[in-house]
């Protein structure tokens, strides 16, 4: 169907029907001081040739380094079939058509995605994806307040070991909606949320406990004990998980005696390239009991008037295009294209493939940590087991060392000084299955060299 824009005549007719003199009059509610009247700050346009040259220069700066940064976005091998399928014309859009049921293929792919995510997380129902991992955590907190009617406080316990960006987005989204947040410290020797830290909140009214597994430091949390502790106090448990890790770790649906209540996370590790930070997709699964409080949409399997199988959108009545201000979310209905990448990735890898990726990533990280901590001045910080990331400390500020490594074509990890100054000169490193022993040796020898001059001096 071709796209037919409205004509000047159409516009005049519509304006006269509603009694507005011109299109500008439709925006008169916006105060003049909030309007941008000129776009002088924007540079002039570039020709196609100039854009190609600029982007080629940018591309040369990117993508060649050997990357040991994780911290929420992970480099995994993506089977070639994933993106060659997605970029087909039938799929290449972030949008579900407005008459969604006319696009049965799109709905079927969402249905397959939901089935796989529910199974991976051990939950009963999944939505059709969300904007990204950070906003999914914010949405989960808002949802928990709607779902937990016993708690009057609208208070959420957030660990300090939750990804700092997830934390910031959650506060930005939810503080203005009347939610309150308390920070749970991490154990300085082990990096996890210990039950001792929770004791301070005994007897308080709180709505939900957020548990990230593995946490931002890569550390494995005591999820069973934390889940049972929260449930014993009639609070909900929001699990924030790396989907790849679920091939090896216990799914949130099986945490503790009753399992987590809401599961969210960043879907990027499933088939989405790092691409300088996005676009990615968020995921959310839950129990049937809470499905009506879940934001976003769900695709259901059904039959048409003649009894033939098909797919249709369900729970749309709670979306913003129908329910406006009372919608369960005003952020995002779903992130179609990236979700499709995740679906194809999971389908191509299968359960065993995913398990091999997770196990190889863990093994490579162990190898990396061993190689780096063999260097004088490099220490591992937390004693507890990790998934595929670990925190190391150096004997000097991290940033200059990372700059030296970058010159050698190595992205050496994330400097934690801004987010966790209490750790001192700390570095978060990650290795996935994409790193070979040679890559790890190259990193270790470059780091050893970068640290040498100061020791000699």
């Amino acid at each position: 169907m071709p796209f037919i824009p409205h004509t000047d005549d159409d516009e005049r007719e519509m304006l006269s029907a509603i009694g507005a003199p011109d299109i500008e009059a439709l925006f008169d509610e916006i105060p003049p001081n909030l309007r941008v009247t000129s776009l002088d700050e924007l540079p002039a346009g570039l020709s196609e040739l100039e854009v190609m040259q600029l982007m080629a220069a940018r591309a040369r700066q990117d993508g060649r380094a050997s990357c040991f940064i994780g911290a929420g976005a992970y480099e995994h091998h993506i089977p070639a079939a994933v993106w060659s399928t997605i970029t087909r014309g039938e799929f290449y859009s972030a949008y579900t058509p407005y008459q969604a049921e006319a696009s049965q293929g799109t709905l079927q792919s969402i249905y397959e995605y939901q089935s796989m995510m529910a199974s991976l997380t051990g939950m009963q129902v999944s939505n059709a994806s969300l904007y990204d991992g950070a906003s999914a955590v914010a949405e989960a907190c808002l949802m928990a307040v709607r779902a937990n009617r016993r708690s009057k406080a609208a208070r959420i316990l957030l660990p300090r070991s939750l990804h700092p960006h997830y934390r910031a987005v959650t506060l930005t989204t939810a503080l203005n909606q009347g939610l309150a947040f308390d920070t749970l410290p991490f154990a300085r020797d082990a990096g996890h949320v210990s039950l001792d830290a929770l004791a301070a909140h005994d007897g308080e009214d709180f709505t939900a406990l957020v548990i990230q597994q593995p946490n931002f430091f890569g550390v494995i949390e005591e999820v069973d004990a934390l889940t049972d502790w929260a449930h014993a106090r009639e609070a909900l448990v929001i699990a924030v998980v790396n989907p790849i890790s679920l091939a090896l770790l216990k799914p949130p649906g099986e945490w503790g005696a009753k399992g987590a209540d809401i599961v969210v996370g960043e879907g990027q590790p499933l088939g989405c390239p790092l691409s300088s930070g996005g676009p990615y997709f968020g995921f959310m699964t839950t129990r049937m009991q809470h499905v009506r409080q879940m934001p976003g949409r769900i695709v259901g399997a059904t039959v048409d008037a003649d009894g033939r199988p098909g797919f249709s959108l369900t729970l749309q009545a709670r979306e913003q295009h129908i329910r406006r201000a009372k919608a369960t979310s005003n952020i995002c209905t779903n992130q179609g294209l990236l979700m499709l990448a995740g679906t194809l990735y999971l389908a191509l890898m299968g359960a065993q493939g995913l398990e091999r990726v997770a196990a190889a990533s863990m093994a490579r990280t162990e190898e990396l940590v061993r190689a780096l901590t063999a260097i004088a001045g490099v220490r591992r910080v937390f004693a507890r087991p990790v998934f595929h990331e670990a925190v190391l400390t150096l004997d000097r500020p991290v940033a200059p060392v990372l700059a030296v490594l970058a010159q050698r074509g190595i992205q050496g990890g994330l400097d934690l000084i801004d987010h966790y100054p209490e750790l001192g000169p700390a570095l978060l490193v990650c290795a996935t299955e994409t790193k070979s022993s040679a890559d790890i040796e190259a990193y270790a020898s470059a780091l050893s060299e970068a640290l040498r001059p100061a020791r000699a001096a």
Partner: protein
Amino acid sequence: MSKIPADLKYTRSHEWLKALPEGIVEIGISDHAQESLGDLVFVELPEVGRSLAAGEACAVVESVKAASDIYAPVAATVVAINVQLAESPELINQDPYGRGWIMRLRPTAQLADSGLLSALDYQALAAAG
């Protein structure tokens, strides 16, 4: 033509009110409202004991095409809810003035008759809308 029983009071937001003994008021949605919404799939009910301000949104009826709030017609305390609606929201479609009742309230303020419509006035409103 939808049914509009003459012995009930109505609101502009399509709730009906029935006076029960001891000052209790029963609330539901009109036949016209259930017809406009279509097949109901879910009803979200308030907790018994909750205090409501006049005009406060206190329940949600959700159909396959829309979700609408139910408003308290008067400041009141919730004394009972129709728990059968949790399993069978279609009772509202089948019997909006009977088995499809939504909640019972004990008003904590004077029931402001001025804001409520008679069956005749509501009929005019429903016909216009």
